[in-house]
């Protein structure tokens, strides 16, 4: 039993979900797979008065080839992303990072959109989306708008999504010839990354996203510049923690996280052949 009672609305369409958000404002939370939200509610860290269940909006469950990008519906489950031939061949880094999310049971239920809008800086997927320069499509009362992933994560568990808006699609540029690596360091099987890194190099241009190195997932822009300028893996990795403000918790302090960022970035760069 979730400790705090709430009202439950099952949305049968995007319009119904948006109408419920318009009515209940910030008292409402959207429920997709529930694998980020329900654990918070059990701990009373989230106590929404109204849950708007969008889990039945099957129209938002798809992976499509759309010209120069792969379009992934927000309610697509992690397992579908992980095993999609299209994602694996055109956006392999995202498939790889997704395979590290939680465990098989979590990936059967959790959704890419739910994970991303949760805005957890320790989550695996944002690092891949940052590295690949994804675009997020949200829908609100006045229609759709696109948000570059660089502008999406605004604070700890906070994203640039209005209380009356719904994430509907994630667009990942197709990179069939890219070389990439996802490196994650944790102590126990299903834990969040203490630090993780996504690296992709495509047509001579690099993208590097860091996990759990700040209150938001962030790009290692100094490493990107070094790689693009021809630095070796070990040279470029030296600046992996530049500009980051790593958190301190039971697993690690900032200095150790900075060390991990350098080591994991060097390993990832070595995998991609820098």
């Amino acid at each position, binding site marked *: *039993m*979730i*400790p*705090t*009672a*709430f*009202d*439950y609305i*099952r949305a049968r369409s995007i319009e119904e979900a948006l109408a419920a958000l318009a009515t209940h404002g910030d008292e409402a939370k959207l*429920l997709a797979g*529930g*694998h980020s939200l*329900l*654990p918070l509610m*059990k701990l009373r860290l989230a106590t929404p008065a109204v*849950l708007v*269940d969008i*889990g039945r909006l099957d129209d938002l469950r798809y992976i499509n080839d759309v010209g120069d990008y792969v379009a992934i519906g927000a309610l697509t489950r992690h*397992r579908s992303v992980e095993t999609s031939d299209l994602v694996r061949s055109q956006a392999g880094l995202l498939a790889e990072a997704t395979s590290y999310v*939680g*465990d*098989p*049971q*979590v990936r*059967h*239920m959790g959704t890419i959109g739910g994970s991303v809008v949760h805005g957890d800086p320790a989550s695996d997927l944002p690092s891949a989306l940052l590295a690949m320069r994804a675009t997020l499509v949200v829908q609100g009362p006045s229609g759709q708008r696109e948000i570059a992933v660089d502008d999406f994560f605004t604070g700890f568990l906070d994203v640039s999504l209005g209380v009356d808006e719904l994430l509907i699609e994630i667009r990942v540029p197709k990179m069939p010839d890219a070389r990439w690596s996802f490196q994650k360091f944790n102590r126990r*099987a*299903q834990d969040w990354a203490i630090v993780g890194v996504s690296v992709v190099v495509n047509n001579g241009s690099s993208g590097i996203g860091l996990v759990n190195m700040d209150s938001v997932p962030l790009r290692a822009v100094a490493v990107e510049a070094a790689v693009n300028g021809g630095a070796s893996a070990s040279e470029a990795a030296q600046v992996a923690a530049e500009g980051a403000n790593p958190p301190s918790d039971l697993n690690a302090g900032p200095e150790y996280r900075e060390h991990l960022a350098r080591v994991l970035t060097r390993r990832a760069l070595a995998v991609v052949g820098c």
Partner: protein
Amino acid sequence: MEVAVTINGESYSREVEPRTLLVHYIRDFVGLTGTNVGCDTSSCGACTIHLNGESVKSCTILAVQADGQSLTTIEGLADGEVLHPMQESFRQCHALQCGYCTPGMVMAAISLLDENIAPTEQEVRLGLKGNLCRCTGYHNIVKAVLHCAGASV
């Protein structure tokens, strides 16, 4: 709110509060207590069942989310006295000690083989990462899954 589900081929319907977790619906209302609650934080996997054929953690799903869906619990595996092949493999390989994690392990293992009919030992270990055995009996659990998959162990 009315929640109607099919569990192990039987239909059930019950009025529940929206905050009721699926595992409590199964255990407290339907009375199928083979599915255990372990950590209640989606870490340990003791509550693993199949939702429309795939392994999920029933402590992290609201009963209302499962409305209209088809569930399988550990009680739904055996055919009378004849154990499911995975249960039989667990028995033969002595893959349980205290037994608390066993229902979730078996459900996770069946889902794993549904997706990968011939896993390597490493794939079995990764595929069961969502299930904890506090007796640390992993060696024989992995052996049982490989045995069920037809590997010589």
